[in-house]
């Protein structure tokens, strides 16, 4: 089964685990991106995520097709959360199943790396001092 979804609801890791089940799978690698309490040493209260959902889901599906082809994934599940997230919440899950374990790690890593570099999704840091700025805003400080 495949999942490529942008979702405002809390991510249910078990949904991703169910999706990648396969009797031919010997390895499953699951990456969870979680909201940290600091960024580059500055205390943070959390993140706001925004996505251009239709294009983000298309791009995630393309990345899924790539890692299936490159690493022989049996199944791929990618869910990215949007909205206001608190410290500790799951922002993104990339789960894959493969016949052997080495490919599972490579595929999951390639999946999250490519989501981060290509999916039209943005995060705004809610600094603990009360200010809030978009990541990659050229005028941010």
């Amino acid at each position, binding site marked *: 089964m495949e999942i490529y979804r942008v979702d405002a609801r809390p991510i249910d890791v078990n949904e991703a685990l169910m999706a990648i089940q396969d009797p031919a799978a010997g390895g499953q690698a699951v990456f969870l*991106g979680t909201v940290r309490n600091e960024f580059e040493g500055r205390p943070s209260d959390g993140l706001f*995520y*925004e*996505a*251009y959902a*239709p*294009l*983000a889901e*298309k791009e995630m599906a393309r990345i899924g097709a790539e890692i299936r082809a490159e690493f022989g994934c049996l199944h791929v599940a990618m869910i*990215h959360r949007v909205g206001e997230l608190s410290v500790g919440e799951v*922002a*993104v899950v990339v789960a894959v199943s493969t016949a052997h374990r080495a490919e599972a790690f490579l595929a999951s890593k390639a999946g*999250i790396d490519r*989501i*981060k*570099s*290509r*999916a*039209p*999704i*943005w*995060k*705004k840091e809610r600094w603990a001092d009360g200010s809030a700025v*978009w*990541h*990659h*805003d*050229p*005028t*941010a400080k």
Partner: protein
Amino acid sequence: MAKVTVLFFSYAADRMNGRQTAYEVSEGTTVARFFDEHLKGKLGESMNGLMFSINEEWAGPEVTLHDGDQLAVIPPVSGG
């Protein structure tokens, strides 16, 4: 004239004071020309760091806008 809906995200939405705006552009207008005429000043940055999509698919700055198109301005992404 072609009616075009333009979507903004992240800091670009802040600068444009909204996430969606309707524009009327002359026939034959490319993304690049539209950007120069309508967005460059308010966004305060060049097109170099931005990407675009038309009707939910990636599109280069050379692509021509058509009536009913939905153009999205995609700032550098920071998901994950």
